[in-house]
């Protein structure tokens, strides 16, 4: 059965020249120098920068300046010098998907030989292992399986909650929730209400890619569009849950589009305060279905640039997570001085990005050492960024989804 992806609109297939970082020394030359000096003052004084200013940083700032600014924002938000991480596990209950994103090497069409749906018992066994190892979170996402609906997930989540109350279900994503809404023909708020009742604790930020239509139409034309992605998260926050946000860069987007993505997130966060954290990474195009559409993988210097600018721009996000899975431990450590204050999950299993040929699972000990040797205090956390570490003095807050919900959102049944 053929599953050829739709061809992209020829006129906007790829920008004429891939984005090139600016000459580093431009940061030292007028007129860039004047603008950069003003933006730097704003940031160091704790002020908000405009999208134009973020673009200015993107186009002209050199790495030490970006590091200085991102470092200062991180220090302001986390003066105690803590870097958190969570002991968790990734489970992808199914790799079956009909959304055909060109950059995804993980999914399989429904009739493919390698298509799978995990049996409940298999999933529970993975959760059991996680719980035994002190894991606090289950990051569960899957492809958009045409026959699996939200009730399947509600059953699963309810079962996991009942058997392993210490392990939070950090599950699904805006595109998956939107998918349920479409195939079940009911509003996403209802779907969320069911999931909340079943025990869903928080929602990951996947599927954002770049929140700009021109880009989405090329790389993921069948997936949830920008406005809808944001709307779903708004509903998640209104339902009393917290979620995270992401950005995947380094494909067909322009620099301005990266900033626009950040602007959309910041605006929604101003409204709801519901996002806990932001994370970004570059596309890993090796072996993906539409590899021909994608430029060469961006180099690490771009990651530090984009990450630092995200930290500075998203002044209303408490946490910025590094991506050691895609960037490796050394660069992840450097990123702790480029705005990141969180190491993400220890991931006792990772399938999605690994399918695209990028694999960096690390042990808890190594993560702790990496954080410590960078001069920070490693602390374990839960899904809502409450510290759950015996080295921590003081209570864990938030300790559950109820304590994490933002003002004005719906109360949750316990």
């Amino acid at each position, binding site marked *: 059965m053929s599953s050829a992806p739709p061809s992209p609109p020829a006129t906007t297939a790829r920008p004429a020249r891939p984005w090139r970082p600016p000459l580093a020394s431009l940061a030292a030359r007028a007129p860039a120098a*004047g603008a950069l000096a003003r933006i730097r003052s704003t940031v160091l004084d704790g002020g908000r920068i405009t999208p134009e200013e973020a673009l200015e940083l993107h186009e002209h700032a050199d*790495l*030490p300046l970006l590091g*200085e600014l991102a470092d200062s924002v991180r220090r302001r938000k986390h003066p105690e010098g803590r870097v958190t991480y969570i002991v968790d596990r990734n489970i992808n209950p199914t790799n079956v998907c009909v959304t055909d994103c060109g950059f995804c090497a993980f999914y399989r069409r429904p009739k493919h030989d390698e298509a799978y749906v995990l049996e409940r018992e298999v999933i529970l066994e993975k959760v059991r292992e996680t719980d035994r190892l002190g894991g606090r979170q289950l990051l569960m996402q899957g492809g958009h399986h045409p026959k699996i609906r939200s009730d399947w997930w509600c059953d699963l989540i309810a079962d996991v909650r009942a058997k392993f109350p210490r392990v939070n279900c950090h599950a699904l994503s805006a595109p998956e929730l939107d998918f349920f809404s479409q195939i079940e023909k009911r509003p996403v708020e209802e779907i969320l209400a069911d999931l909340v009742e079943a025990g869903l604790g928080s929602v990951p930020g996947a599927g954002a890619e770049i929140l700009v239509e021109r880009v989405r139409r090329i790389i993921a034309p069948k997936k949830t569009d920008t406005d809808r992605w944001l709307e779903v998260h708004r509903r998640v926050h209104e339902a009393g849950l917290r979620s995270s946000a992401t950005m995947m860069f380094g494909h067909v987007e322009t620099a301005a589009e990266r900033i626009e993505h950040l602007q959309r997130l910041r605006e929604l966060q101003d409204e709801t305060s519901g996002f806990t954290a932001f994370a970004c990474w570059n596309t890993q195009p090796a072996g993906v279905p539409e590899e021909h559409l994608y430029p060469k993988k961006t180099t690490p210097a771009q990651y530090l640039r984009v990450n630092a600018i995200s930290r500075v721009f998203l002044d209303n996000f408490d946490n910025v997570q590094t991506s050691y899975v895609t960037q490796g431990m*050394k*660069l992840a450590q*450097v990123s702790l001085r480029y705005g990141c204050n969180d190491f993400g999950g220890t991931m006792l299993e990772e399938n999605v990005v690994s399918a695209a040929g990028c694999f960096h699972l690390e042990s808890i000990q190594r993560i702790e050492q990496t954080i410590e040797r960078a*001069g920070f205090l490693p602390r374990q956390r839960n899904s809502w960024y409450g510290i759950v570490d015996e080295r921590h003095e003081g209570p864990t807050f938030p300790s559950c989804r109820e304590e994490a919900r933002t003002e004005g959102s719906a109360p949750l049944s316990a």
Partner: protein
Amino acid sequence: MSISELHIDSAAEARLRDAVDRAGLGPIAEKVFAGERLDLEDGLALYRAEDLHAVGALANHVRERLHGDLTYFNVNQHVNYTNLCNKFCSFCSFDRQPGQAGAYTFSPEEAAEKIREQLDEPVTEVHIVGGVWPKLGYDYYLDLLRAVKSARPGIHVKAFTMVEIDQIRRVAGKPLQEVLAELREAGLDSCPGGGAEVFADRVHQAGYDKKISGDEWLSLAREVHRAGLRSNCTMLHGHVETLEERVDHLDRLRRLQDETGGFQTYIPLSFHPANNDWSHLPGPTALDELREIAVGRLMLDNIAHVKAYWILMDIPIAQAALAYGADDVDGTVVEEKIYHDAGATTPQQVQREELIDWIRDAGRVPVERDTLYNVIWSGAEA
């Protein structure tokens, strides 16, 4: 080599001054702007400063005054002619004893074959270093040079650290200047900077006491420079040495450079803790590596180039290092053994096009050079 004269754009200068002032490095920065040499206390302060970005920004300022955005690389290959060695340095994972699995010595002809294997590549330099093995006679070294040079006559032969030069002089039984002249005649063009480790006697005793001392290394380098040969210099960091010992090492390098002007490039080398006697030590972090580049650039005011050796740092850190004081990334290599035996997981070589790409992605202009920094190709875009 003074770095004082060039005008700095005032907005950028003000920003840099503010950043270093906030980091408590104002007085040091004033010296840097005035082209004055930093003293040992300044070096310690740079190592201890919490704000790595301020140290980096200052080093970057020096880098850009010296080299603008230019970033040098070359297309080279490595030939490690033997891994037999009688020095037993604690940090070394490369050395073998005869009969040990993996022990080898290339004959001059085998070394020449390695050169011939790369004839289709635009290789301009071969980097030749190996263990110190007393059974190798003077003729071996001369034949090695001749064989390599005749396999590729235009190639620049950068061979033998000061440790090996010491050994060669011993087995030759002749005065050093005569030996150097004969080595040159046989094909030697310049010398690499390895074997320096940390000059302090305490560290030498602790880790590599069978090798020549710091003073001896410097003295040999002086002679090599007097013979008209350029060389590089290094410091192995991140093991048992103190910050004071690092600063002292850098100071000794620059004092020799004041005398001879013979060093081209300084390369900080990270200690890698796998498969050696010091494996219990953690080794330097990525942040330490960036700091070493920056402090090296600031302290070594009379050495033109600072190299971020990507083989040991990994490309991400080498890229970042280009904004923290480094203007050189070494070359495409081929068959690097020394660091890979110590656990480096970087690729054995990188294509020229990849090097160019990631230099550009770091916001710099790639320039292909030969060993003596003549420009072979410039990546400046119109």
